């Protein structure tokens, strides 16, 4: 038996009885469907709603947690970078204020400062002093940059304007990424005439005094002397207005040192932390979003004073969480980029567990609902069918009993006058025979004989009727199967004759007698023979065979050469109220009653049929009656 049969009741497949006479039975299809639907709705709607709500809440909570974390990380990192830059800026600021221009122009002093910076802070590559004309007057580092003119460089313009400048990362002469921090100090108490340094013709002219200044530094002149000298030369050349003079301390810092700050960050979810400038050029190494000094694939986020978190969908349709912060006073933007899918991984596994749980729950609930409903409604259906069948059988049996009693009464009443006729005719015959008066008149004797034989025939009919009626009462007795079958055929013999149906009986004489109720046995075989007769059109054959199956059972086969039953109907012919002859007044109960009676007797019935060839009913009955299976409803009172 497959699981489907447990979940789906058999009656769903049965043809509708709506148009038939027994439609009084409940509509079990509707009951089943309604029960399944309502129970499923009541059970599943809250489950699905709760799961959906939980799903959404959890997902949203996780998403906001991810955004929050990215934001926090960006903000912390921004603070670190801020601190790093501020630290370097402050130290340079301190140095420029702690040392005079002259002191800083002393190579020894500057070399000492660079060494202290390297050991104290690390990352300082070189350091230089640039005067207000943009000429590097003193320089300590790996390259010969003394006297280099920075006056045209934008960073120099910026430092002049803002007093402080932090450059973008650039390769510069060293072909190594580095950046510059420059701070400006007004020359205390000194003024000079500012010149147009941008004028190209002048620039070369300015180089000489710078070189001579460098020479002066090499000769370890005192800072005051040197600056006085320098001022002197400036004063000589000044022909523009007078303003406060200034100088710039410029330090190059290895970007590697800066990178460590970002690469040491522990980033989950394929994270990437790097700096870009306001133009979107990558400043520190990025794992996924481009090389240093190339333009990043992520669009430059709009300016915000605070740390912000945004979602960004890249070209591969991946959702990225971007936490960013504008580093104040610099051209840097800190970018923390994480793959959302990676971060949501734990959620995806939780989600699949949630979905599997939901699917399994729904399956279990539906399975339980279907099997329980099927079980209950099926039992109701069977009980209802049994009830209808029992009701019908009570009616049927009562009718049969009434007809039986009527027939018995009639038979008895007719029997007496028949006996009189019999004796009178006998007497006439006797008179002819014994008194020799009409001894020779064969015709008269023949007439008397025919009256007597007719009376005998009537007598046999009345006896059969009386016999039949009497067996409506339940009594278990020893029955000879052959005589039982002949009794049954006796009622239908005439019909068979009229319709030219050949009736063959093959029952061995030595078949043991059977202990059972004669009336019920008669009913079983009367039903089967009647059925066969209605299937046979004419000139057909009805065959009744009996043989011993084993020491406890014998099988009686009723086969016909009638129209046969198709396989769809065959499965249902023992179902109560199932009929293909409703238009001809069939109740669909004949075979179901037969089935019930055979079961009651402790036997079973099988059927084989082929459309157009005929049908075979095989009734297997025990020799000993099984009283345990007696159906009380069916007993005749």
């Amino acid at each position, binding site marked *: 038996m497959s699981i489907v049969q447990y979940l789906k009741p058999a009656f769903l497949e049965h043809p509708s009885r709506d148009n038939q006479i027994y439609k009084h039975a409940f509509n079990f299809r509707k009951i089943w469907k309604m029960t399944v639907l309502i129970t499923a709705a009541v059970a599943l709607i809250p489950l699905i709603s709760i799961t959906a709500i939980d799903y959404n809440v959890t997902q949203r909570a996780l998403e906001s947690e991810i955004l929050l974390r990215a934001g926090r990380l960006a903000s912390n990192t921004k603070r670190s970078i801020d601190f790093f830059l501020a630290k370097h800026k402050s130290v340079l600021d301190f140095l420029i204020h702690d040392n005079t221009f002259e002191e800083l122009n002393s190579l020894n002093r500057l070399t000492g400062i660079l060494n202290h910076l390297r050991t104290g802070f690390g990352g300082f590559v070189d350091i230089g002093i640039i005067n207000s004309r943009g000429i590097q007057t003193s320089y300590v580092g790996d390259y010969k940059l003394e006297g280099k003119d920075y006056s045209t460089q934008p960073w120099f313009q910026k430092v002049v304007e803002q007093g402080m400048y932090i450059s973008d990362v650039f390769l510069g002469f060293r072909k190594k990424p580095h950046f510059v921090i420059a701070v400006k100090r007004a020359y205390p108490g000194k003024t000079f005439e500012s010149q147009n340094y941008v004028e190209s013709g002048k620039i070369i002219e300015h180089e000489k005094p710078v070189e001579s200044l460098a020479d002066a530094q090499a000769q370890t002149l005192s800072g005051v002397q040197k600056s006085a000298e320098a001022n002197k030369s400036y004063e000589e050349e000044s022909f523009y207005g007078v303003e406060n003079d200034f100088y710039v301390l410029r330090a190059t810092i290895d970007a590697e040192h800066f990178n460590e700050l970002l690469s040491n960050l522990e980033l989950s979810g394929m994270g990437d932390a790097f700096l870009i400038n306001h133009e979107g050029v990558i400043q520190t190494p990025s794992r996924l979003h481009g090389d240093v000094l190339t333009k990043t694939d992520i669009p430059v986020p709009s300016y915000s004073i605070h740390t912000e978190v945004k979602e960004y969908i890249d070209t591969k349709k991946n959702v990225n969480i971007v936490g960013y912060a504008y580093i104040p006073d610099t051209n840097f933007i800190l970018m923390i980029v994480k793959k959302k899918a990676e971060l949501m991984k734990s959620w995806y596994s939780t989600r699949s567990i949630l979905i599997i749980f939901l699917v399994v729950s729904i399956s279990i609930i539906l399975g339980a609902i279907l099997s329980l409903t099927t079980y209950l409604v099926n039992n109701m259906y069977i009980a209802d069918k049994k009830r209808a069948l029992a009701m019908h059988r009570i009616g049927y049996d009562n009718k049969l009993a009434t007809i039986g009693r009527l027939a018995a009464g009639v038979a008895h009443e007719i029997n007496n006058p028949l006996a*009189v006729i019999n*004796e009178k005719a006998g007497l006439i015959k006797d008179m002819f025979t014994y008194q020799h008066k009409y001894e020779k008149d064969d015709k008269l004797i023949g007439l008397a004989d025919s009256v007597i034989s007719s009376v005998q025939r009537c007598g046999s009919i009345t006896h059969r009727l009386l016999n039949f009626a*009497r067996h409506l009462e339940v009594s278990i007795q020893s029955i000879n199967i052959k005589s039982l079958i002949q009794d049954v055929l006796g009622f239908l013999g005439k019909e068979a004759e009229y319709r030219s149906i050949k009736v063959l009986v093959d029952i061995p004489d030595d078949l043991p007698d059977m202990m059972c109720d004669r009336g019920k046995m008669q009913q079983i075989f009367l039903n089967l023979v009647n059925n066969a007769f209605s299937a046979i059109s004419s000139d057909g054959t009805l065959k009744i065979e009996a043989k011993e199956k084993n020491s406890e059972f014998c099988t009686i086969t009723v086969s016909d050469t009638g129209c046969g039953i198709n396989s769809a109907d065959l499965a249902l012919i023992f179902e109560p109220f199932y009929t293909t002859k409703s238009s001809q007044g069939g109740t669909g109960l004949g075979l179901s009653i037969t089935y019930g009676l055979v079961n009651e007797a402790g036997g079973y019935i099988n059927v084989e049929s082929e459309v157009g060839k005929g049908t075979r009913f095989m009734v297997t009955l025990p020799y000993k009656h099984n009283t345990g299976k007696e159906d009380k409803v069916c007993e005749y009172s």
Partner: protein
Amino acid sequence: MRILLVDDETDYVSTLAERLSFRGIEAQWASGGQEAMRYLENNQYDLAVLDVKMPKIGGIELKKQIQKRYPDMKFIYLTGHGSEEDYNKGVADSVYYLIKPVNIEDLVKMMKKAMEGK
């Protein structure tokens, strides 16, 4: 062989008696139990043929009464019903049994058999 026939259907029983006389069997008929008992008081019979179903006293009851007084008498039941129940009662009483309408020759044969079984 003296026979007493008892049946409430007088037309039937008288004809039966007449037919038996053709066959050399002398039979007296009575239309009921009381009449039968009267005959029995005055005459002696070897065998009684009794209809099972009769008003007032049925054949089975009548047989019991007769047998009390004349224990040697033999009996044959006649019945219109031919029920197995009746048959069983007949067998239990060791009485012969025929179903109406009877064949007269069968009845004669059964009478002889009953007498021989004495």
